């Protein structure tokens, strides 16, 4: 009851002129970012974090959440019309979305994508409202030992599940954890790996690093690939058919649950949610032979799954300060920049904020419904703008964005260095998401390990004997052994 009244207060506060303007504007920006292959939700949130840094915290976070939801939804446009996922999350939507478009049903496919995205997001929003406070309450009993393993768990899971090779994923995760150790550490204020440089003492800032990994590296990748032309230009009705949702209600519900669950898993993002939902729908479907050939059920499953995982990914970011995905990691960093400290104490110190986030996600969901119904044709024009015009402008934004967080030129150089390294590593098959998670979780892992050891006077036993700690360790060990075997079998 208390939660409901807090939610009511939030909705009341956000149902005003400026929040609605911000919602519509930011969701549109997010959709445009998602529409353009090469621009990810992570980059969109990172760039908008720099742009909104002087705004009031609630307005800035509202804008970032709208960009996040908009970008994941917008990527389905390019998946359907170009057979290229606008963001990694929409790769599963390519299979059936593009096949439907080839059959002259591009509009129907976009309508289904809109319906799936909206329903998935709404399901996720309900879970966000229900589970965040309870998870936060459970997390109040967590100590340094549990947080150490949670951080390790996040890095290992992302390493295992993103990309094709767990070994490469783990290396990137450890590299990210290491990059987070550069600079002044938080316990004894000792400068690590700074080589006497005052700039390095400030550490590797997250936003410039992300802009490098997801912006500059992506620009270079896009410039080396041939540009695809929209194959489908004619668009039939985009009005979502309620019948499609009702007919596949079980698939919608299943995909929503899978999406939220995958979202909650630390570091595992929207792309994995979409693929898992798609695979589960295919297994359970009576029309499984239609999957990949223009199945409405397949498209609905993929789009419901990826959008449900957005609120799912925000749940652990708010309750545990362990983000569920790379975009959620940037969102969490932005919250910290704006003075909100996510983690178990959030429900104690700023309980209203959780419901504010629920409301923001709800508003973003309504905005994608609006744009999905009324802005289809103008959006189609966007994906036809040549990348030779878009990419130089995006690079200028990447430069400004890296600089504006702390007005340091050094951050621009960090962006450049991580961008070039990221481009080469990507080409060699190393995923970027584990690096980002490592960078975000590095501080928690370091402090938790040393604090835990101080508390236990140097004994490692509590890391393995405290019940929750032991359970998380067992999951980490199981994951590593399972994927180690898999990685080895590929020889």
């Amino acid at each position, binding site marked *: 009851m208390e939660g409901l009244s807090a939610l009511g207060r939030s909705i009341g506060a956000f149902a005003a002129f400026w929040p609605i303007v911000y919602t519509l504007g930011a969701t549109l920006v997010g959709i445009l970012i998602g529409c353009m292959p090469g621009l990810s939700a992570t980059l969109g949130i990172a760039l908008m974090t*720099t*742009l*909104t*840094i*002087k*705004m009031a915290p609630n307005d800035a976070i509202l804008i970032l959440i709208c960009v996040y939801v908009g970008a994941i939804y917008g990527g389905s446009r390019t998946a359907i019309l170009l057979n290229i996922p606008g963001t990694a999350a929409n790769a599963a939507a390519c299979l059936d979305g593009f096949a439907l478009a080839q059959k002259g049903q591009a509009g129907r496919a976009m309508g289904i994508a809109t319906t799936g995205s909206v329903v998935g997001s709404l399901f996720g929003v309900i879970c966000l409202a229900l589970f965040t406070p309870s998870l936060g309450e459970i997390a109040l009993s967590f100590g340094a030992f549990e947080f150490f393993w949670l951080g390790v768990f996040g890095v290992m899971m992302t390493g295992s599940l993103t990309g094709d090779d767990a*070994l490469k994923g*783990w*290396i990137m995760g*450890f590299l990210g*954890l*290491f990059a987070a*150790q550069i600079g002044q550490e938080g*316990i*004894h204020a*000792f400068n*690590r*790996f700074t080589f006497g440089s005052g700039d390095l003492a400030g550490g590797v800032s997250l936003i410039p690093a992300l802009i490098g990994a997801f912006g*500059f590296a992506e*620009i*270079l990748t896009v*410039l*080396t690939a041939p540009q695809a032309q929209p194959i489908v230009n004619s668009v039939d009705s985009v009005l979502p058919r309620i019948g499609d949702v009702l007919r596949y209600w079980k698939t919608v519900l299943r995909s929503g649950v899978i999406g939220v669950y995958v979202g909650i898993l630390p570091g595992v993002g929207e792309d994995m949610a979409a693929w898992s939902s798609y695979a589960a729908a295919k297994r359970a479907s009576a029309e499984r032979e239609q999957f990949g050939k223009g199945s409405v059920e397949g498209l609905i499953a993929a789009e419901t799954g990826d959008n449900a995982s957005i609120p799912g990914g925000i749940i652990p970011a708010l309750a545990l300060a362990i983000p569920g995905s790379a975009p959620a990691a940037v969102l969490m960093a932005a919250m910290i920049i704006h003075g909100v400290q996510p983690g178990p104490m959030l429900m104690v110190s700023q309980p209203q904020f959780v419901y504010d986030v629920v409301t923001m996600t709800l508003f973003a969901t309504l905005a994608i419904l609006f744009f999905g119904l009324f802005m289809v044709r103008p959006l189609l024009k966007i994906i036809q703008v*040549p990348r*030779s*015009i878009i*990419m*130089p*402008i995006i*690079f*200028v*934004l*990447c*430069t*400004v964005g890296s*600089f*504006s967080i702390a*007005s340091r*030129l050094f951050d*621009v*150089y960090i*962006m*450049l260095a991580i961008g*070039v390294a990221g*481009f*080469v590593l990507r*080409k*060699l*098959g190393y995923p970027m998401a584990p690096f980002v998670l490592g960078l975000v979780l590095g501080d928690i*892992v*370091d402090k938790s*390990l*040393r604090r835990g*050891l*101080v508390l236990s006077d*140097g004994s490692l036993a509590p890391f393995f004997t405290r019940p929750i700690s032991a359970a998380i360790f067992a999951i980490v060990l199981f994951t590593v052994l399972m994927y180690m075997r898999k*990685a*080895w079998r*590929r*020889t």
Partner: protein
Amino acid sequence: MKSDRLQGAFWIALGFAIFYASWTMDRLASVGVKPFSAPGLLPGILGLFIVLLGVAMLLRARFEKAEMIEWRRIVLPLALCLGFAGGMVGRGVPFWLAAWIFIAVMIWVLQHRERKLEGALPRLAAISVSIGLAASVAISLIFQELFLIRLP
């Protein structure tokens, strides 16, 4: 660096370097810090794990078809990006001017071959200069005037 073997060797070298730097890092014993709270503890462990993963990669030695990087295609845009962000920005050139030059030259470089075949180079010059100017002025105004953010 196309094979697991080379990459494995690289990670082993990097991991050892991290481990060595962590091992030789000041453990702050002189100010009463216990060894298990030393600043180099986690970086050292990470270095060791990177070595282990590098060894696993080396042992696996799976030769895979790594995607070839088309450096010839990327070298000029890359040089322009590095020249703009590393050489022009924050070094006395007004930001709007640096951005204008960068965007115009970059569009010219990326579309040059295609437009040359069409005999439309003068049009390309006009397009790249005008888009560059419009974009740089818009970015400067939006960041500096609308969102009050300092530009480099």
